[in-house]
C-alpha cells in the first residue's frame, strides 16, 4: 500500500459563456483512475459537476477529456500513470462547451446521418460466406468506440470550425473505410468521399492515430487507402473499365456527388437533417436540394 498522498486536481468549470479551473484536493486511494477521482469530487465537493460517463471500462467512449492537456478516456487513465503533482482535466477543446467537462458532440451525429448506408449484395442461397482474412481489417475499424478523441485532435477541424461543414473527420473516414472494404457492400462512395466528406483536407499528421484508445491505425489503414482509392477512381481509366467489365456499379456521377455535397454542407449542423439516401437509385426521389 502506498503512503497517504494528496491529489490536487484542477477541473474546468463553466459553460458556453465562460469559466475557469477550480482546484480540488482529496486523499489518494489505491488503484484509481482519473474518473474515480472526478466522481469522488462530485460526490463530496461539487454535486452539480457535469461529466459524461457510462461503462467505466473503456468500452463506451463517453468520458473523453483532456488530461494534463492530453486527449484521453478518463476511465482508462490510472492516476499512478500520471506525473506526481497537479493534474488538470479539461473538456475536449475541439467541440463547443455545454457545461464543465461536457461538450456538444452533435456534429459527429450529424455527419453520421450523411454516410450512405451499407448496401449488401443479394443474399445467395445458403447465406453469405466471408473468410476471416477478408474481414480482419473491417473488424479493426469496428473496434471504434466513438469517443471522438480523433475528431477532437484533428487540426483540420480543431482549429478551423468552418471546416466542419465540408469535412467528415477521422472517425468517419474509419466508418467509410469499413464500408468500402466490406466484402458484401456494393456501393461505390469514392466521389462522395472526396467531394462531400473532404478527405483531401487531411494531410496525414497522424494525430488521430496517436490518441485512439482502441489502437486503430486510422491514418495508415483507413485514411491513406481511402485517399488512394479516391485518386484511382478519378484518374485511372483502366480501373474504371475493369469495374465496368466486372459489373461493379459505377462511382457516383458528378451530379449525384454534387447532390451529396449540397446535402452534407447545408445539413451538417441542422438538427432536422435526414440521412442521405442509401443508393444513387433512390437519390432522385428524395427532393433534396441539388445546389
Amino acid at each position, binding site marked *: 500500500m502506498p503512503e497517504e498522498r494528496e491529489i490536487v486536481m484542477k477541473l474546468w468549470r463553466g*459553460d458556453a459563456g465562460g469559466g475557469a479551473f477550480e482546484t480540488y484536493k482529496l486523499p489518494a*486511494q*489505491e*488503484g*484509481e*483512475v482519473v474518473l*474515480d477521482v472526478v466522481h469522488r469530487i*462530485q*460526490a*463530496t465537493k461539487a*454535486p*452539480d*459537476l*457535469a*461529466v*459524461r*460517463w*457510462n*461503462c*467505466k*471500462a*473503456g*468500452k*463506451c*467512449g*463517453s468520458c473523453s477529456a483532456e488530461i494534463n492537456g492530453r486527449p484521453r478516456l478518463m476511465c*482508462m487513465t*490510472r492516476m499512478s500513470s500520471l506525473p506526481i503533482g497537479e493534474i488538470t482535466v479539461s473538456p475536449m477543446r475541439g467541440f463547443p462547451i*455545454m*457545461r*464543465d467537462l*461536457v461538450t456538444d*458532440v452533435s456534429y459527429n*451525429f450529424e455527419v*453520421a446521418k450523411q*454516410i450512405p*448506408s*451499407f448496401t*449488401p449484395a443479394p*443474399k445467395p442461397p445458403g*447465406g*453469405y*460466406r*466471408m*473468410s*476471416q482474412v477478408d*474481414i480482419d481489417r*473491417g*473488424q479493426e475499424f*469496428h*473496434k471504434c*468506440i*466513438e469517443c471522438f478523441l480523433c475528431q477532437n485532435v484533428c487540426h483540420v477541424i480543431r482549429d478551423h470550425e468552418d471546416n466542419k461543414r465540408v469535412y467528415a473527420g477521422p472517425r468517419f473516414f474509419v466508418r467509410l473505410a469499413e*464500408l468500402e472494404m*466490406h466484402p*458484401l*457492400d456494393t456501393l461505390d462512395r469514392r466521389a462522395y468521399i472526396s467531394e462531400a466528406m473532404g478527405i483531401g483536407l487531411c494531410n496525414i499528421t497522424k494525430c488521430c492515430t496517436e490518441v485512439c484508445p482502441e489502437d486503430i491505425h486510422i491514418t495508415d489503414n483507413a485514411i491513406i487507402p481511402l485517399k488512394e482509392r479516391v485518386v484511382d477512381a478519378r484518374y485511372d481509366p483502366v480501373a474504371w473499365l475493369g469495374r465496368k467489365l466486372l459489373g461493379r456499379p459505377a462511382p457516383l456521377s458528378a451530379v449525384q456527388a454534387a447532390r451529396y455535397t449540397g446535402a452534407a454542407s447545408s445539413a451538417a449542423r441542422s438538427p432536422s437533417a*435526414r*440521412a442521405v439516401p*442509401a443508393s444513387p437509385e433512390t437519390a432522385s426521389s428524395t427532393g433534396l436540394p441539388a445546389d
Partner: protein
Amino acid sequence: MSDQETHHYDVVVIGAGGAGLRAAIESLTTGARTALVCKSLLGKAHTVMAEGGVAAAMGNVWPEDNWKVHFRDTMRGGKMLNNWRMAQLHAQEAPERVYELEEWGALFDRTPDGRILQRDFGGHRFARLAHVGDRTGLELIRTLQQRAVGLGIDVFMECKIVRLLVDRDGATNGAVGFWRESGRFVTFAAKAIVLATGGVGKTWQFTSNSWESTGDGHALALWAGADLIDMECVQFHPTGMVWPPSARGLLVTEGVRGDGGVLKNIDGERFMFNYISPYFAAETADTIAEADKWYTNKADYRRPPELLPRDEVARAINTEVKSGRGSPHGGVFLDIASRRPAEEIRRRLPSMYHQFKQLADVDITTDAMEVGPTCHYIMGGVRVEADTAATTVPGLFAAGEVAGGMHGANRLGGNSLSDLLVFGRRAGLAAAQYALSHPAVAPTESAVVSVTEHALSFFAHDSGENPYALHQDLQETMQSLVGIIRVESELVEAREKLAELAERASKLSVEGNRSFNPGWHLALDLESMLACAFCTTLGAIERRESRGGHTRDDYPTPDPAFETINMVTRLSGGEVAVTHLPRPAMPAELAELFEESK
C-alpha cells in the same frame, strides 16, 4: 398545451440499447411514426459492454444443434421458472435475427468455411455464441445504431423520462422527461410506448453495470400500474474483477472459460469439481481428464464444471472465498495463461487483455486473473405477453432486460443479446400495430404538470442531504442484505432500511441549476432504484426456496410448489404488494424434451 415542448408520435421507444434500437427499427418499418429516447448519447448504452456473444442455434460449428436443444438449455439454466413460450420463440427466432445483423453490416468472426463462428459458453450444450472477439455487444449496438440512423429514426439523446402518462381507462398515452443538457421538460404524446431501459445493477455496490442501469423502466411500468414478476431473481455474474478497488465488479467475460480458462483456489485446486449439483451431474465432467477433452470432442465427453450456469459458479466462488481458500484480494483465480498460447489469448480476448493490463497491471497471457461475483443482470421484470411483449397496461410494451419471464431464475450467458433482438423486434412490431389501430391521444396538461412539479421539488428542499451519499447507503444495504446469499432476518431488515431510505430520498436537496446537473439526475434515478429494490426485497422474502439467482440460506433447496408460480409485485393503494401468480403449463410436446433428464 402551454409552452411546454411536446412531440406527437405513434410509438415512443424508451432506451436505445439493443432492444430499444431493434424495436424502433421494426416499429418504423412497420409504418408507425417512431421516436427513440435515451438517457445517454446514442450508441453508449449498456449493450456495448456485452462481451462473449449472442446465443443462436445456427448449427455452424455443431450441426447437431437446433432450437429444441437451445430451448431446453435455456429452461434448465433458468431452473424451469422461464415463461416457456418466450424461451421457445427466443430459441426459434435467434438465428434469423443474427443473420439479419449480418445483412445490416455486422462482421462476426468466421469458421474456416466462411460462416459465422460460434463459441462455447456456460450452460449451452453446443458451441452456440456468434461473436466478435470479446466485444460482441459493441458490434451489435453499432450495427443497429447505423441501421436506425440510415432509416432516419428521430432520436432524442440525453433525455431522461421521469414518468409515463396514463389515461382514465388505465392505458398509456405518453411520457414526460427532461433534456439533461438544459433541464427543460419535454412531453411525448404517444399511442404506444416500448420500454427498453435495461437493468437495475446500480442498486448494488459491486456491479458490472453502467450508470444508466437504474431500473427506470421497471419503475415507470410499476408506477403506471403494470405488473412486475420475479424481481428477486437477480444474477450475480461469477467473474467480475476484484482488484483494484476502483475496478471492482467490472465484468470478465465468460468467454475466458468458454475458451479454456479454469477457476482455481489459493491451493491451485480446480474447485468447481466439488460443486457439481445433482441437477447437472449427468451432463458435467467429473474428472479433469474428461473435462479437458470436451473442448474438441463434445460428442464423447461431458462439459467442464467451470461452464455450469452462472448461478452455480457464483455460489461456488462465494463458498470458496468464505471458507478461506480465496485469492489475496478476496476472489479466486481465473487462469487461461497456463492453458492457451499467448497469441491465441490476445486474439480471442483482446478487451480482457487490455482491461487487465491497463487497470490492474496484470498480463493475462502470463498470470491468472483474480475474480469474484458481481451484480450483472435482473431476470425478473415487467410481466409481458410472450408473443407481443405487451405489458398489463394497454399501449405499454417491454423488451430486453426490463421485461421478465424469458430467463426464469437464471440467465445463460449469450441469451441476453439474442433476447434483445428477438423481443425487441416483437415489441416494436406489436407496438406499431397497436398504435396504427388506435386513435390519437392527448395527455392532459395537469398530468404533465404534476410530473414536472415533482421533478423540480428537489431544488426547493433544504434537508442538506446529498443524493450521492444516499446512493451509497442504498448500494451498501442491497449488497450486504439482499446479495448473493439471502436469509429472512436480513431481508426483513433490508425492507425496513429501504423504507427509511425512501423517506430520506423524498427530501433530498439538489445544488446548482437545471443545466446538466448530475446531482439532480441522480435524485430522480434514485426513485427508480428504490422502487426496484423494494420489489426485489419483497419478492425475496416471499420466495421461500432457492432457485437460480435467488438463494436463501434458510430455504436452501428448490421447492416444487414455487416452480409453478411467478412472484408478482404491483402497486396497490400506493404501496407495493406481492401476490402469487400461477404460471401456464408447458404443452406436452415441449415438456417431453425434459423427460430424459429428470
